[in-house]
């Protein structure tokens, strides 16, 4: 089994007045095909962990390798390219551009990787189809329900064929019934081979993954 994410003794300290330490000596491996959930209360460091794995932030100590490449030596340009090509983000608030159609939103996925418009359109349509929204490609996000919007956001994350999907409280803004359908979609995607790392404060949601880690005060511990 190949490791997608390998964190070794990662810490993240902020240079604020209090010298906040968001992550403390975290070690974590996420393998191909894993559905890893990270559970913990607010302020426990979950989002910081996700930002580091998604190359939006850098550890102040420790090492992080993505698909075997040490990220600490990457320039900003390489980090951006790697992020665009290997990471798919799903946010709690969907982060869709409301004036753009669903298709155009999903096509943003490979805008910065050099894909042609034709390839991008084809990838986006395939991704929308995989989340069951091919027929809403031309709709505006404002015309969709919350669950459908999150599906569009998932399609955008999938369109670039990433090595890992990073999901930040993806059901946090949804009612329980819609949340179930989104979680079911994640399970289905995982069954087809998608590697998923999902952070949540909801233990019920966290129990759906095949692996679960817990965070408290920046310390990571793998649940048995």
């Amino acid at each position, binding site marked *: 089994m190949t490791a997608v994410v390998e964190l070794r003794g990662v810490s993240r300290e902020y240079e604020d007045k209090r010298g906040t330490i968001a992550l403390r000596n975290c070690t974590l491996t996420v393998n191909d095909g894993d559905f890893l959930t990270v559970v913990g209360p607010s302020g426990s460091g979950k989002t910081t962990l996700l930002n580091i794995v998604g190359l939006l932030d850098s550890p102040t100590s420790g090492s992080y390798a993505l698909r075997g490449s040490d990220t600490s030596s990457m320039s900003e340009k390489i980090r951006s390219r790697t992020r665009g090509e290997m990471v798919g983000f799903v946010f709690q608030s969907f982060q869709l551009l409301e004036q753009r159609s669903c298709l155009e939103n999903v096509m943003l996925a490979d805008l*910065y990787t050099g894909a042609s*418009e034709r390839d991008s359109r084809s990838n986006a349509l395939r991704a929308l189809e995989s989340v069951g929204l091919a027929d809403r490609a031309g709709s505006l996000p404002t015309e969709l329900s919350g669950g459908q919007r999150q599906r569009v956001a998932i399609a955008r994350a999938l369109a670039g064929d990433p090595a890992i999907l990073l999901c930040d409280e993806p059901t946090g803004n949804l009612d329980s019934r819609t949340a179930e359908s989104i979680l079911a979609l994640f399970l289905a995607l995982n069954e087809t081979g998608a590697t998923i790392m999902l952070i949540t404060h909801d233990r019920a949601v966290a129990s759906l993954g095949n692996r679960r880690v817990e965070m408290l005060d920046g310390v990571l511990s793998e649940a048995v």
Partner: protein
Amino acid sequence: MSSVSRIHVLRLIGEAMAGITQKSSRSTLTIIGTALGIGSFIAVLGVTSSANSQISEEFAAVEATQVTVQPVASPGSSTRDFPSGSEFAVDSIKGVRAAAIWWDLPVESVGAFAPISSSDISTPRVIAASPGYWATVGATLYSGRFYDDFLADKPVAIVGLQIAKQLHVEDAAEQPVIFIDGVPFSVIGIVDNAANSNAPLSAVVVPDVFAEAMFGDPGDQATMTIDTDRGASDVVAQQVALAIDPKHPESYRVLKPPPPSVVRDKISSSTQGLFFALAAIGVIVGAVGIANSSLISVMSRIPEIGLRRSLGALPRHIAAQFLIEAAVRGVLGGALGANVGIVAVAVVALSQRWTAVVEPWSIFAGPILGAVVGLAAGLYPARRASQIEPVEAFRL
């Protein structure tokens, strides 16, 4: 293009265009603001050109047609320095339309009643002039008539309309009497306009022969004014002194107005400077509008910037998108402004009955200037946008 900065330019332009239409009301207002700035610039240029063209035409219309001759003061001389028959000699020069000799009279009082101890009105200027004076100054009558050679030795007067009112002279047909230093003069005409001089409008003018008999010889105070055909003033000026006194032409100083082109150029230059300054203010206002709108756009789109960064956008991709948006707003505003400006020039020219003059390059200058203004105004907001870190963007 390196592999790390791969992005299809057309797709980036498409994103920028979408960014403009995304907030269409804000973009529309920004474009209108820019259009007003650029439009005022184009309009000012056009109105300036049209006005200058009009000034040229009007200067041509009054092109140096007035030549003035003054005797050079000769100490001890007690005679009138223009020999008799001077006007006839000058009249015979080709290109001379009219010539007249005139001088100011040392008058103490002018009034409507006699006897007087003081002037009824503040003493107006009193001029003694030969009959040719009226043709020389291009005067027109409100009422009455001008005097001629027959009346030149009679106590008659022509008054300007303004003076006539002050003297309570309403109609010259009745030939009312006014008193100059106690001497009665019949007012035979009231002048209401003079194309070449303002003097007769605010003066009392009496015939030269009578004035000479009453006040004495003017000596070297007399002036000869000559009205010439357009373009003939140079030739007339060269010949006039010789025509007056062939033996002593150096006894006369001949003055002619500066060429109209010099005056015109001075006026054009000063008006253009002023108008350009006004136009520049308009453009700056447009630029501030774009900068303001772009900055607000950046602030309101921080989550979008974060999203784009999470999708692999480099800071320079973000900067490029916002710069293109600002430039496109500028181009659209500039194109609209050019049209608005040209219409404004046409309206102003039409209302003033001028010939509208629009420089051909100004049609293209609008969009180009708009692009430059947009790019310049978009630099700071674009830089701000590119500096937003994705983590900070998602935290907001």
